[in-house]
């Protein structure tokens, strides 16, 4: 009993069904009652549904082939099973060999045999290996004598035949058959193949003119085959809707005869070889010298053959192949990149769904395509020029919704270039969407601009250390590059300030803005690039007076990093003595000091806004905060007030009233320790670096 139970079942469902069939197989037809037939039918239906929807796993096919060819349930059930034997991806060779062994027992009907051969021909490409099957060549050949099977067996042999299978006795047999049955197209096909492999063995002349040799065995499984092919081409297997009905006629036409957007990997033998005269099929098959891409499976292989690698005939195929992406990454040949550029630009343009009025059904396909591109860009750590060109054209037409995540990721991979040039083409359009969309869109844009900045900085910091600056292609000097980066930062500053106003100082938005500045403040030290850009006042003061304590903490951290970067820059200037192009202007330092004073005033000395801010005393009187000057520090700051209160409650639970003004002197220090213990690490770093503790208020 247990032997019969399939150990592995197909992941797509129908587990119970397969088990039931497996068990029933052993029980056999001895107990067939009407109710049993009903359950069998139900199970078969389930298998059928699963098979046509997702395909069957190799183990499932193994079990079902056994059931079908053992013939235990009769011819009708066998037929039904064979018709839905659609692989999810592949069929294991063993299953086929086992199935063929059932043919020898003679328990299945002629019709089942025919159907099995048709199935084998149709699914031939999905069988994982063919060596074992080829060993059964003699068996198949012997089946030619069966008149009903002959055409299908011929087709199978046509697919299976290798040069070593062509033997004089087989040729004689085929000629005998032909003499007996007349000029049958299927026999002719096999003979012509034999003649191709061994011209000396066959002296009879075969008609030159071609016609259709084989009846189309694939018909039964046509749509399923397409789906399997598509599944096998995708990097990640996903549930896939079957292409049924005439509704899909147009897109197929649009894409001509390729099944997926990205071309299949093929060596470029054709365009290279066709210059030579007299190439024939066998020359193609046995061409040596260069390493065919189809065999490239591992990184060591790539390294060994990198000098003689055949490039794909369609460069777009590299997107799905990480080994070739490695190759693309180090290749110096400009034509490789140009081929990829042209293909990618056109495909993006052709596939882009918001160019089409009525074609939203391809949304998923386009999203997948963009995902593949982004994966490749992340892998290469480099953006494609074609994506940039695509964005120039498509951004003005984008609704901000379609493929949002993908599109914004593409933004973050825009290759480094002069900001002022890209701005009217990209960022101005993006800004329009930014200002008119929801806060979530704004946050996503800021996030991708942060990534863009990071990618630019990485690219520049590598560039500077690898090659002399003068050879940098787009910008002639490092100064130019830095200029472009600082323009980007200032642009984001402008976007952020306006967005804060539009979203009425949303804390959520401010988090994303400060995330951006966490990158900005560390450029000098983290990327070793001579650039410090401060945030605009609109951001600084919003963060400083925010009601959210984590914002305040983040601000403190950023100010601390600015300080560290600026100090390092100053130190380097002093060491080098020479006036270099990249000395920061005094204005940057002044700006920083101004912010610093404001911060220390608000958090420490209770003397906020000493300079540059005048508030009419009458207004303050009316608001009841005439004493405002002493009421803004770490204790009274709106973001920290609750911490101050809980500090008092925790330390002196017996006190009846919470007296905030009592936090001074020693208590002040305890309060600070309390805040640090509550996770204000940014504040801690800021106070340590920017405030001399001798000046206790």
């Amino acid at each position, binding site marked *: 009993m247990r032997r019969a139970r399939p150990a592995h079942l197909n992941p797509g469902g129908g587990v119970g069904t397969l088990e039931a069939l497996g068990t029933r197989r052993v029980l056999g037809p001895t107990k067939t009652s009407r109710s049993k037939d009903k359950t069998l039918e139900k199970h078969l239906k389930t298998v059928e549904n699963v098979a046509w929807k997702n395909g069957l796993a190799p183990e499932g096919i193994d079990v079902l082939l056994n059931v079908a060819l053992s013939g235990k349930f009769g011819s009708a059930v066998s037929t039904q099973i064979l018709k839905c034997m659609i692989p999810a991806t592949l069929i294991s060779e063993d299953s086929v060999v086992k199935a063929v062994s059932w043919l020898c027992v003679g328990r299945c009907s002629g019709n089942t045999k025919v159907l099995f051969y048709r199935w084998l021909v149709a699914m031939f490409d999905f069988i994982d290996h063919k060596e074992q099957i080829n060993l059964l060549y003699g068996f198949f050949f012997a089946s030619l004598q069966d008149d009903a099977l002959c055409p299908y067996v011929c087709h199978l042999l*046509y*697919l299976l035949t290798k040069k070593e299978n062509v033997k004089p006795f087989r040729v004689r047999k085929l000629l005998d058959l032909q003499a007996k049955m007349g000029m049958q197209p299927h026999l002719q*096909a096999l003979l012509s*193949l034999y003649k*191709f492999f061994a011209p000396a063995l066959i002296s009879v002349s075969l008609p*030159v*003119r*071609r016609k*259709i*040799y*084989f009846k189309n065995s694939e018909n039964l499984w046509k749509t399923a085959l397409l789906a399997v092919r598509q599944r096998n081409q995708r990097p990640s297997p996903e549930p896939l809707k079957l292409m049924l009905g005439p509704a899909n006629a147009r897109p197929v*036409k649009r894409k*001509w*005869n*390729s099944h997926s957007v990205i*071309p299949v990997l*093929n060596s*470029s033998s*054709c*365009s*290279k070889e*066709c*210059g030579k*005269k007299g*190439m*024939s*099929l066998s020359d*193609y098959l046995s061409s040596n010298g260069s390493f065919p891409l189809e065999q490239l499976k591992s990184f060591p292989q790539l390294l060994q053959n990198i000098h003689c690698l055949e490039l794909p*005939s*369609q*460069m777009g195929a590299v997107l799905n192949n990480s080994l070739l992406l490695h190759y693309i990454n180090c290749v110096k040949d*400009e*034509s490789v*990149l*140009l*081929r990829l*550029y*042209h*293909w990618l*630009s*056109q*495909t993006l*343009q*052709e596939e882009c769904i918001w160019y089409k009025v009525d074609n939203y059904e391809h949304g998923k396909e386009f999203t997948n395509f963009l995902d593949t591109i982004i994966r490749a860009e992340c892998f290469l750590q480099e953006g494609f*020029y074609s994506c*940039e*060109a695509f964005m*120039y*054209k498509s951004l003005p037409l984008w609704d901000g919704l379609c493929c949002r995540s993908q599109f914004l990721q593409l933004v973050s991979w825009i290759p480094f270039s002069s900001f002022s*040039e890209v701005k*009217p*083409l990209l960022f101005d359009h993006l800004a329009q969407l930014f200002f008119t969309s929801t806060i979530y869109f704004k946050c996503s844009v800021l996030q991708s601009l942060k990534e863009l900045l990071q990618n630019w900085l990485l690219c520049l910091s590598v560039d500077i250390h690898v090659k002399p600056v003068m050879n940098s*292609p*787009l910008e002639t000097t490092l100064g130019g590059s830095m200029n472009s980066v600082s323009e980007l930062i200032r642009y984001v500053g402008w976007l952020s300030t306006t967005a804060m106003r539009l979203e009425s100082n949303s804390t959520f938005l401010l988090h994303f803005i400060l995330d951006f500045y966490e990158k900005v403040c560390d450029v000098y030290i983290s990327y070793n690039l001579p650039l410090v850009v401060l945030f605009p006042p609109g951001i600084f003061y919003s963060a400083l007076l925010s009601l959210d304590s984590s914002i305040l903490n983040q601000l403190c951290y950023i100010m601390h990093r600015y300080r560290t970067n600026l100090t390092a820059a100053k130190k380097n200037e002093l060491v080098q003595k020479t006036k270099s192009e990249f000395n920061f202007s005094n204005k940057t330092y002044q700006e920083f000091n101004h912010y610093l004073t404001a911060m220390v005033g608000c958090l420490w000395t209770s003397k906020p806004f000493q300079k540059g801010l005048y508030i009419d005393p009458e207004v303050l009187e009316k608001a009841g905060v005439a004493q405002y000057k002493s009421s803004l520090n770490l204790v009274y700051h709106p973001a920290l007030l609750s911490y101050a209160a809980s500090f008092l409650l925790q330390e002196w639970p017996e006190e009846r009233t919470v007296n905030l003004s009592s936090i001074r002197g020693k208590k002040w220090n305890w309060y600070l320790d309390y805040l640090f213990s509550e996770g204000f690490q940014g504040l801690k770093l800021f106070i340590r670096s920017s405030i001399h503790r001798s000046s206790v208020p």
Partner: protein
Amino acid sequence: MLRVGPGLAADFIFCPVVRSFSLQYLCLETMDSCDTPESTPRQRASSRLKDYFIGATPLQKRLESVRRQTSFVPTPPRRKIPQCSQLQEDVDPQKVAFLLHKQWTLYSLTPLYKFSYTNLKEYSKLLGAFIAAEKQKGLAVEVGEDFNIKVIFSALLGMKGTQRDPEAFLVQILSKSQLPSENREGKVLWTGWFCCIFGDSLLETVSEDFTCLPLFLANGAETNTAMIGTWFQKTFDCYFSPLAINAYNLSWMAAMWTACKMDHYMATTEFLWSVPCSPQRLDISYAIHPEDAKALWDSVHKTPGEVTQEEVDLFMDCLYSHFHRHFKIHLSATRLVRVSTSVASAHTDGKIKILCHKYLIGVLAYLTELAIFQIE
């Protein structure tokens, strides 16, 4: 005479009497309403861009060219009126005749990689084998075998705008008759040709491994076009996209082709507008005697030898207002879908028929320009 109703095309021809006074009136009317934009200030930036070209790789040149295309006015605001070019004289007249009076479907094509004019014979064989293999899927086919079809690649010598333009070439698929009679070359099943007329802007951005023939024209069953296109895409790593012509470019064609000097007119000048309304769309056909059209053009035309955006707009506006005066329909609110003149006719779907061999090069030059714009 005019029946404007769903599904019915409104067809009418201008009476010659209308000509003299109406034109004058139209011109007066449109003089003050003309407000075409001057060239944009952005063009000033072009000198700065030049700096980047120094030492730039082809890829960067491409990107720069795309940037220029995108940031400036999409198409230059002035073009030359098609002239009879000298280069055209060494074109085989038989071949030219073969290209005329046929409806061609337009495609844009990215540069062909490693295409060589010396291998045309081999390409014929390979493409023939490919088609045979496609038609009998799953069977081995040997290159150079005899099939029912014959593929011929041939150069269209002289079909170019400048000496730098690569040579155009023609691909024909012929059916071979089954009977070994004297007429072995059967009928033409499919024809397609590749050309590049004044394609300088594209030529300067690719390296020598590539052949730029951005305009592809096909005549025959679409399944054949698909098959042959697939072979080209696989063999030369290029990309075909259908080339549609928008209303803006159609009106340019209307103006430029009307401006051509003709010895005698072969067809009426006809415009087709489409009104997207349900349940059936409404087509308005507007036919004018070609001499009337020419007279209208001459009245709006100022710059000798050139067509400007302003003139194109004025020309179309005159047609619109005339139509409005008679039928109270604002054609400017509908979509121009087809233009036919004695020089050529073009449909927005990307179909073209060239009638006049004298202006063949001129028509192709504009189409090449559109194709290049699409592949940038």
